[in-house]
């Protein structure tokens, strides 16, 4: 049994960094698929349409919304990091930046989801 079952995971900036990392990994994994899908257009519009028809499934649509959320989260989290590193925010204004980032990401996902249906 390890003595270091510790709880460093109790403040927002910690979770922000984990979200940023996970979203980055998932986006990196998704991107080749995205490129391959668009690449089907090389064989003509019909081929791309064929693929798009395949995406007309609930789980695919749900994943698309999730991906928009992940992209928005990675973007807003990244902007927050750039601010902290280059403008040098001390103590990150009590997590206000994080709240703004989270809110913006959620807004994007919602806007996309609502437009989808």
């Amino acid at each position, binding site marked *: 049994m390890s003595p270091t079952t510790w709880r460093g995971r109790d403040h927002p900036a910690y979770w922000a960094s984990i979200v940023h990392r996970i979203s980055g*990994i998932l986006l990196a994994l998704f991107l080749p698929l995205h490129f391959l899908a668009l690449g089907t257009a090389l064989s003509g519009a019909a081929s791309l349409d064929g693929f798009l028809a395949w995406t007309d499934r609930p789980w695919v649509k749900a994943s698309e919304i999730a991906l928009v959320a992940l992209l928005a989260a990675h973007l807003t989290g990244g902007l927050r990091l750039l601010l902290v590193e280059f403008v040098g925010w001390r103590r990150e204004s009590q997590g206000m930046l994080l709240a703004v980032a989270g809110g913006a990401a959620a807004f994007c996902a919602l806007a996309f989801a609502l437009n989808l249906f």
Partner: protein
Amino acid sequence: MLWIAQRATAALLALCVAVHLATMIVVVRGGLTATEILGRTRGSVGWAAFYGLFVLAVAVHAPIGLRTVAGEWLQWRGRGADACCAIIGVLMLALGWRAVAAVTI
């Protein structure tokens, strides 16, 4: 150094992603067909340039990030890991530019 490249591409990507997200949110109304997509992108030098640059930035930004994850979570460091990430970058560039060509040419 890698950090500068990653932050620089991050700043560029912030703009590209903002444009891409906004476009997708506005344009995807109840689904998207190939005709709708290609109608906008085929023959467009603007979209080709935009997405061409977008892909380039991603092909630099993502592998650098993955390299850090490999080092920290998989404990994989050194020449092998660096080479693997570089290859991923090249692959992303190739696939990405192929996709851009597919919809703009």
